[in-house]
């Protein structure tokens, strides 16, 4: 008979009195008052929506770190120091119930909680970070001194290539299968050899965030099942109404367009393009008119936007066909392109009614040869942005303000300033969705007295 080896149970940081981040692995057996149930959840929700807002404004990691610290301090304190940890854990689990119920809610919650965990981890001391690493029981070995000597030059090159501090002789590196750190691989931020990534201590955040995300993702699916099968019914007079109310009040500041804002007909489309399209869509629209063609991502970005703007499926088909048939012929259009337009409207295949891309999504897309999608504030050269802004009617002072934002990589703020310059009034909410730009623009134009139009 062989004895099965058990993993060593390390004494946890909590035992040793070091404050550490909870991993929310299991629901606590704590008693919670009903008011606290709701209040704690709302406080945490403020933190999560603050994070969501910060991300969609394109804040850099250092700024996000600061933001998270502020949000946490402002919302998650408790008069009794011993209760702080409990509030953290309880609020998380309540929100799990709230956000497990649909795919969209789960996705949002997963992203925000992972971001929260990531930045809180960064704010921890090195010892606390090591404790969290141990908590995950990741079987990653630290690189030995002799191994280190062999690869030291390569590690130095990597550090220099990403403007990080150079590894010293006592630097700790972890040897990790590359599959575990996709973000670091994608950014070429680690040295890879024979399938292993050599991860610096300060990159361990990535590792840990991936683990956290994976744990939480699985947990959410389980929670959803439990909710659907037992909890919702059991708690229908007590917790369920609270849970359901919590999610509808905070969909998250990302403007997810489901409804159509009035209708736009084909004959209006050129005019509204000039007056109310944000630069990204204006560019795609103009290129489509010019080349009578757009590549895949351009079609997706513009097509879904037009759907959100109120263009009906039949009009959309006529619109795209009128353009594409000038390049590829009507028959080829029907054969190769009509299907995917119908697909976007949820009339084919999986019948998912796709939502138009938000700024966050668009900014993340990178155009390549022959593409026109993505965010022009991010990808256009300075000259081209200036030219485009002039064409849209922004005066030279306005252009400079916008260019300043672009140089600082604040693409959405650049777009907001463009909006404000063109419409002559402020947009305090800030642009985070092209359809929001459109509907805000239309609102302003329609409220103006007709006699002032040319």
């Amino acid at each position, binding site marked *: *008979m*062989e004895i*099965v080896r058990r993993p060593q149970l390390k004494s946890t940081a909590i035992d040793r009195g070091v404050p550490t981040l909870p991993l929310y692995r299991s629901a606590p057996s704590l008693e919670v008052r009903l008011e606290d149930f709701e209040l704690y959840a709302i406080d945490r929700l403020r933190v999560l929506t603050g994070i969501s807002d910060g991300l969609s404004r394109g804040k850099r990691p250092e700024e996000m770190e600061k933001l998270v610290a502020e949000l946490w301090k402002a919302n998650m304190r408790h008069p009794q120091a011993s209760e702080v940890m409990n509030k953290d854990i309880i609020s998380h689990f309540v929100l799990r119930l709230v956000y497990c119920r649909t*795919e969209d809610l789960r996705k949002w919650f997963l992203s925000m909680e992972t971001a929260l965990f990531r930045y809180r981890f960064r704010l921890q001391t090195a010892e606390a970070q090591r404790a969290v690493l141990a908590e995950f029981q990741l079987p990653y070995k630290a690189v030995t001194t002799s191994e280190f000597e062999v690869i030291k030059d*390569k590690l130095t*090159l*990597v550090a*220099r*290539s*990403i*403007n990080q501090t150079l590894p010293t002789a006592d630097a700790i590196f972890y040897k990790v299968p*590359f*599959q575990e750190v*996709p*973000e670091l*691989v*994608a*950014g*070429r931020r680690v*040295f*890879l*050899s*024979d*399938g*292993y990534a050599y991860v610096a201590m300060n990159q361990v955040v990535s590792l840990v965030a991936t683990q956290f995300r994976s744990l939480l993702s699985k947990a959410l699916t389980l929670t959803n099942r439990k909710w659907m099968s037992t909890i919702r019914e059991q708690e229908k007079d007590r917790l369920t109404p609270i849970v359901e109310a919590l999610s509808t009040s905070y969909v998250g500041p990302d403007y997810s367009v489901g409804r159509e804002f009035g209708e736009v007909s084909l004959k209006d489309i050129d005019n509204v393009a000039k007056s109310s399209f944000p630069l990204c869509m204006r560019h795609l629209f103009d290129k489509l008119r010019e080349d009578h063609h757009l590549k*895949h991502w351009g079609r997706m970005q513009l097509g879904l936007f037009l759907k959100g703007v109120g263009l009906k499926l039949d009009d959309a088909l006529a619109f795209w066909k009128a353009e594409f048939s000038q390049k590829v012929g009507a028959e080829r259009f029907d*054969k190769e392109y009509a299907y995917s337009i119908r697909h976007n409207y949820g009339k084919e295949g*999986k019948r998912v009614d796709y939502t138009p891309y938000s700024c966050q999504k668009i900014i993340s897309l*990178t*155009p*390549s*040869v*022959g*593409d*026109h999608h*993505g965010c*022009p504030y991010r*990808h*256009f*050269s300075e000259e*081209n942005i200036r030219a485009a802004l002039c064409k849209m009617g922004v005066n030279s002072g306005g252009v400079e303000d916008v260019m300043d934002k672009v140089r600082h990589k604040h693409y959405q703020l650049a777009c907001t300033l463009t909006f404000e310059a063109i419409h002559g009034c402020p947009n305090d909410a800030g642009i985070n969705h092209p359809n929001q730009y459109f509907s805000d623009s239309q609102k302003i134009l329609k409220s103006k007295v007709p006699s002032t139009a040319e």
Partner: protein
Amino acid sequence: MVIEEAVNGRDDMLIDGQMGDQVLPSGFNPNFLKLYYGIPLLKLRFQSKLFPYGDIFRWMSYGNDGKHPACDKSYFGRRELSFTLENDIYLRFLSFNSVSELEKGIREKCPFKIDIGPVYSVDPSKRHAYAQSGENVFKPVERELIFDIDITDYDDVRYCCSGADVCLDCWPLMTAAIKVINTALRDDFGFRHILWVYSGRRGVHCWVCDGKARRLTNEQRAAIADYFRVYKGSENSKKKVSLTGHALHPFLVRSYTEVLKDLFEQTLLSSQQIFSTEDKCEKVLEMIPDESVAAELRGRWQKRSSCSKDDINAVRWEHLKHTLQSGRHKGQGLRRCVEEIVFSFSYPRLDMEVSKHMNHLLKAPFCVHPKTGKYTVHLSRVCVPIDPVHCHEFDPTTVPTLSQLLQELNSGGMGQEGDNDWDRTSLGESVRFFRSSFLEPLLKSCKEEMESAYNSKLQQSKNSMTW
């Protein structure tokens, strides 16, 4: 009665008594495809069968077609294939349970193109019985890590050809791409079982078949594709390659010093005549972020000294390097400018979307490319494997064409019953290479993996049972 008559019918032929001398027409003829797949044509005395069904089957089975108890008999049947038929009819979610079913399916439909998709959780042809989400789901579970490199993505930096054309002046771009990616897949990612295939007209495909690769998630595939990504261009930004940082990542350093620098300096400079006209020079000068440096060079080149015997491209490149690396000009963005220019012209450009998703379909090796060009008739070339070690010797203009193979079969005379027909043609070399350098090592490794996984599972259950 021989192949020509069967293919073209008696009436069309200029029949010559000596069949061996007859040259087959070089355009694409669907009947040729039938012969390739071994579909019987009227009154043919013998059938040819060139498409290597058995090899494809053994490959796609990854060892599961054996007798070991660990073999998953459903594995091959869960692989999606798709056919494109003669009239652009597209059939998706096809699957076959055995090599004979596969052969029968292909011969019945005579597809112009065969694509290979992922291995799904259940037989794709029965997918409607399964939910879209939740427990009993229809989703991809294994898929090779694949790459698609198409020379048309380099159109902004190759001047010899454009569009679907390819020649020996621009093909070295593909060779370089193979070398750079292949080395990284082996040395950086630790993959062992890598197949490179000519895509039939203007590019190459790569199939990474290790178990580790087949089980990668979409996120991991995207990460690998991004690791390889350097070129981020579009019409609207001038500089398509931006190498910031005080040093280059070791992967880029290796690619530069082992492959790209020489490719650019020894080959592309002259084959593409990169500095031979004012427009072309301007294109390079636009990549220099410091206008004063660009102006200096522009000025120098405008006064053309016609007395130099040396190749103008090499001379101007030396000027440029010297100016940028002399240290006279210090500035943001100048640090890596020379490398950026070299990378712009030579670094591999992958189609990101192909690699990122498990459900992306890719043309099967040993297919025949049926398209003809607008002005030139492209000969229907077979998608043959390329040896990465000797890829610099690969010549896309001499890849066997369908008509060439049939001609070889025809003049080779009758083989023995049971012989593989491809053995008597140029295809034989490709199939033998496929087997010896890719398929056999892969299957050996699959067998070992399967056995060891099986044994450790046995061991585990033994341990728990004794309690």
